[in-house]
């Protein structure tokens, strides 16, 4: 891919200088394409470094600043609905210029390439009743995770799970990488979860979470758009123009990270507290989900708040319906095992299909 100039954008990018990075890197003889690769995230807007623009607005403005041919550019994003959102943005803001856009399922590829394949434990533990029903791992203190913590505490569900709520110092017995976060530069009490590196081989205690439980209650990175509350204020309550509110209202997000891909990779049933229609999306690309174990109607609830509530109520119901023994039997039923194997195989084959963007 030597003809492609790939500019990787992350949450830590120096946004103000992005156009300069592009100009510096671009060689008109060498490069026939420029990929602005922001597949790590699914943001609606850029709201740091004094930039207050929707992500597409920012990308277009950056391209204008480069003075380069629009046809060179492809914007790659981590939001499943990238092309849909871009088409809406262009329509609502009456934007004539068009670049190529694409969704790249980076975290699927990363999970497949960089995570330990722990699926063998499914078979290995088939005759052992595990001590807990579910896992629930929480790093960054996002709203829906704090809500989850409050709910499971109130409903006394913690006893059914192996869990972390890192901001409340409910952790696994990690090594210095996590517990000793104070040694890390730029980490404070508020962002100490950044000491967690999800994409390397973890300590044994981490894997024991899966040995000890039957399914994952996944509090995905997003149940809304990124920076939802801030964006509500900026683009709905006080929009710069009515088009911003309109765009915010049609903007869709599905952002699937290693948290969910890991469950599939590890052959684990899961309930996902994530974006609207996450399960629907997975089904549309061929995965099977777990309506044979519990009701999955939560996935179709449009309201983020109500969907989160439905997920928690479902968790409560599952914990009060299944015993460890009945859960064991269910998970090791032919029906569920077939799903887990199917998903695992599909996860691997889809990952193989994808070109690796050299992370």
């Amino acid at each position: 891919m030597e003809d492609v100039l790939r500019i990787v954008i992350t949450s830590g990018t120096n946004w103000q200088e992005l156009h300069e990075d592009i100009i510096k890197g671009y060689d008109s003889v060498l490069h026939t394409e420029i990929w602005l690769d922001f597949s790590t995230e699914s943001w609606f807007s850029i709201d740091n470094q004094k930039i207050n623009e929707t992500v597409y607005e920012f990308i277009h403005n950056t391209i204008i600043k480069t003075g380069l041919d629009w046809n060179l550019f492809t914007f790659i994003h981590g939001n499943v609905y990238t092309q849909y959102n871009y088409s809406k943005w262009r329509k609502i803001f009456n934007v004539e210029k068009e670049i190529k856009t694409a969704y790249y399922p980076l975290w699927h590829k990363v999970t497949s390439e960089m995570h330990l394949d722990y699926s063998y434990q499914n078979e290995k533990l088939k005759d052992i009743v595990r001590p807990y029903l579910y896992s629930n791992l929480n790093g960054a203190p996002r709203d829906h995770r704090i809500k989850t913590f409050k709910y499971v505490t109130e409903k006394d569900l913690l006893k059914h799970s192996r869990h972390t709520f890192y901001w409340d110092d409910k952790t696994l017995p990690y090594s210095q990488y996590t517990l000793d976060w104070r040694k890390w530069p730029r980490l404070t009490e508020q962002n100490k979860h950044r000491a967690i590196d999800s994409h390397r081989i973890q300590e044994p205690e981490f894997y024991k979470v899966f040995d000890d439980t039957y399914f994952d209650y996944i509090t995905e990175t997003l149940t809304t758009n990124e920076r939802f509350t801030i964006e509500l204020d900026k683009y709905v309550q006080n929009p710069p123009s009515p088009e911003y509110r309109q765009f915010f209202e049609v903007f869709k997000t599905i952002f699937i990270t290693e948290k969910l891909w890991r469950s599939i990779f590890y052959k684990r049933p899961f309930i996902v507290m994530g974006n609207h229609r996450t399960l629907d999306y997975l089904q549309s690309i061929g995965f099977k989900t777990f309506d044979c174990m519990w009701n999955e109607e939560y996935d179709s609830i449009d309201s983020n708040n109500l969907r989160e509530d439905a997920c928690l109520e479902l968790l409560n119901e599952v914990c009060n319906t299944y015993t460890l023994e009945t859960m064991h039997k269910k998970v090791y039923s032919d029906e569920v095992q077939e799903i887990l194997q199917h998903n695992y195989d599909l996860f691997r084959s889809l990952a193989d299909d994808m070109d690796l963007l050299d992370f």
Partner: protein
Amino acid sequence: MNYNTQYNKFNYKRFYRHEQQYNHVISLQDYIGTDNLIYYDIPEGLIQDIKDHIESFVLEERFKVNITILHGLESDPCIINGEWIFSLLHDIVKQIEDLKPHQLTYETGNWNINKIYNQWHQSDRERINVVGVFELIRIYSPKMWDYQNRSGDLVDIDYRTDFTPKIKPYVFTTLNRAPHPHRMELFIQLNKLGLLDKGMCSFNEVKPDALTRSLTEEELNLLPMTLDVDLNKSSAFDHIYGETMPQAFSYMEEKEYDVVPNEFNTFFENSYFTLVTETKIGILRSSESSCTADNCEGVCWPIEKGLECLRCKKINEKPHWMKIYDEKFITEKTWRNMLNGHPMVWIGTMHTAKMLKYLGFKTFDTLWDESYDDIENPLDRFNAVISLVDNLCKKTDEEWLEIQEKAIPILYHNQSKMLELNEVLKIKYDDTIDGEIKWKTS
């Protein structure tokens, strides 16, 4: 943009389609059949098939899918469970989560369908796309042809190119197969005016009912009146359509033509104009068009108050859906002459000439009075046409040479347009203001 190439770089390549695959076309006839003309039950399997198609795409791709439901060969209203088809189409959108109204298009041969839809719609909900499509133009548009003969070779079509004025043995041609009341009425009027001999006239099939009265025994004895159709050999239908325009009825693959011969050339060469008896004149093709008055067997046309009988003027009750009925149709009968450069007078739906001008064709108002085209009442319009034809039949050879000379640029313009067409002409919502055509003339 080559979607495949782009997607393969970033995505699960097996899921992504070529751009053209986003446009899915469904023939409504495959679901409702051809036995009925207007009234249907909910077409079985239609919703599920659309849903299945949409869901065959990955979730984020579904917004790119466009579903077009074709019914362009007919202009008849499509009434499903007593309601306009629009109800069903909006129900489909409602039932399929990833199908938004703008992704669904309904195409019908009725070019005024947006007027009806606009009257039906009357709400804030998002519109589906409703399109009046001139599907039958395809048959006489060489660039659009993709017909193959028995050997699998693409065939051409022969058409007339020499419009040099000359004295011709007949004034007009009128070719009539299906015995619609307006065609039977034409026979009555031509016979009454002694004009049958002035034209190359065929009335291949016969029914006793005309617009103003039933045919007499004496008139019926004159029928059928055919030109070169051997009714004993095969049906007139098979003869005309199977041999002379097999492309219209999928007979082409049985033929060995390299070029479909122009069987109509003899009519064009031997008459000055064609009196085109279009399929529709604005009367519903249904038993509901029959007058209910005692001893009246007239047909009715829709006016605001109800269905008015063309004979006894009784106002009959309209079915509720018909409050917004309006049907405008142009068929291959017209397009054939456009390609072959033969002037036309139309017995058709109101504003046929006006629509042709809107589409960029030239009509014949510089040669003769075309004001009949603006007459709303189908019988009045019909009578105006008959009066015009009668006048034209009185023209001398010298006058016809002059008219032919004047017609040449019109005919070449139209032929050239037919030769250039590379897609079927359509009337979309953008062509209208609140459903009313934004008339302009070429």
